């Protein structure tokens, strides 16, 4: 299980990476892709959609189940990773490169987990 040191995380297994002032990319963690198994579909929001902290902004479907993906922050979708719509397997291949959405105008979220805190969450669930 890979946890990158330069990212922040959520209890619901999303990662968030700041890509600029008030701008960030959001994706699913390696732990999440491993538990879900081979992904076959990804549903993403549209550019311009508002996302709110802890609310689902999309879902991913594996051969086992459909799971919601939750936003770690409040903000507005500035880009979506369209490549994933045709190739959801990219998330399985490299979870931290396969970002789902980019969000701008984000508000600070003090509840995000550090890599160390997130590792604990994973160990408890594993």
């Amino acid at each position, binding site marked *: 299980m890979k946890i990158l040191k330069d990212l922040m995380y959520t209890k619901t297994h999303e990662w968030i990476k700041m890509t600029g002032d008030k701008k960030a990319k959001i994706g699913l963690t390696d732990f999440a892709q491993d*538990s879900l198994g*081979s992904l*076959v*579909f990804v549903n993403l929001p549209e550019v311009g959609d508002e996302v709110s902290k802890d609310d689902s902004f999309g879902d991913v*479907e594996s*051969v*086992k*189940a459909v799971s919601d993906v939750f936003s770690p922050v409040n903000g507005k979708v500035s880009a979506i990773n369209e490549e994933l719509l045709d190739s*959801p*397997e990219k998330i399985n291949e490299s979870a931290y490169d396969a970002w789902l959405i980019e969000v701008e105008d984000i508000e600070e979220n003090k509840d995000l987990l550090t890599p160390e805190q997130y590792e604990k969450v994973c160990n408890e669930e594993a």
Partner: protein
Amino acid sequence: MSLIFDKSREGIGCSILSELDVEPVLFPEKLKRTKSLNLPQLAEVDISRHYTELSKKVHGVNDGFYPLGSCTMKYNPKINEEIAALAGFTKIHPLQPENTIQGCLEVLSKAEKYLCEITGMDNMSFQPAAGAHGEFAGLLIIKAYHKSKGDLKRTKIIVPDSAHGTNPASATMAGFEVVNIPSGDDGCVDIEKLEAAVGDDTAGFMLTNPNTVGLFEKNILKITEIVHNAGGLVYYDGANLNAIMGIARPGDMGFDVMHLNLHKTFSAPHGGGGPGSGPVGCKSFLSKFLPNPQVKEYSDKYEFSNSPDSIGMVKSFYGNFLVVVKALTYILTLGKEGIKQASENAVLNANYMKCELSKIYDMAFDDICMHEFVMTLENLKKEKGVSAMDVAKMLLDNGIHPPTMYFPMIVHEALMVEPTETESKATLDKAIEVFSDIYKKAMAASELLHEAPVKTPVRRLDEVLAARNPVLKSGDRHTD
């Protein structure tokens, strides 16, 4: 084997239609097809052989043990088929005058009466054609009820995560917002979470009981009370009724609306097309909202009646009528004692298997189960790399249909086993032996399990490829 389309030969066909003995009536030009239908062209004998060949490659309840959890794959008694094939039931037309089909109306009326007796409901409609269809109709009834009281703010349906997967889907289809609540460590509804979730926007609460982990909800009266106090209605998903028939009644537990699966609990065929029947039942204060038409019994006759407050029709005519005939036959064959005994044996069989298998495999919950139980193969996967999928595939090589896999989602590497009451102890013992044999193989040579199945018509299917790039047309093939 090849598809029926591959066997098609130009110009070959069946000539079973008798000569036209009335004046031909032609379609108007504008309605005529411009291209001929793309149907395979085969002689009757070749069609028959094609489907017989297919039928030899499947596994049904008539081939062997079929412990598919949550699906109640019990044996379908042949007498059901015999009764349902009677000309009085088959050679009728849905638009025939009521006075010429009194026997058929009596079947619907009697089936309603007996099923209401079993469930504690007051009225029932046989229109829904499947379980989820019954849920959908039931939710529309809940919606109509709140609307009739002018209470339009009740837009949410609460569903615990141990419910059937169809519950949130049906609620969404019916236009509700779904609020999911997690179950407690014991696999049952978390009362505190439920109390926090209810409010003046709660339209209803859907409960599968026994739930999908095979446990009977402990706080059932408390649950229905909390929802009622908040002004919501309580829906009972009767898909697992096989565990409680003749013993406990949803109506007595405080439930307002429910559905049954005649194609599961009441022994009509299930899987392979059914067809199904998912009657929706309710308490009398909701009866006027049931789908139209309802059969009414008078002292000297039966008649259809329509309620102006009805949610309307949810299927053409009266639902899958012959399935109701089969269910009524089953009820009358078993009688009051037999119905109860069926449930007792279903629960006994499940506990026997659970008890024996727990000597080898990990169980998701230790409690005594109802009609089904859930195993977790998480440790086996971690230690030996053998997943629930691998075990399921090896069961196929042993002539056993695998249990339900990876469901419920609250259990990792889940295998959900429902033996049903129609299996003998000898069958259960044989299955237990197969399970323990597979475990030994997993310990000694796990690669064997990754190879399975080896004896089936097709080996392990690439379900990822199938989901990502489905081939939906004959003639298209995956090349790799």
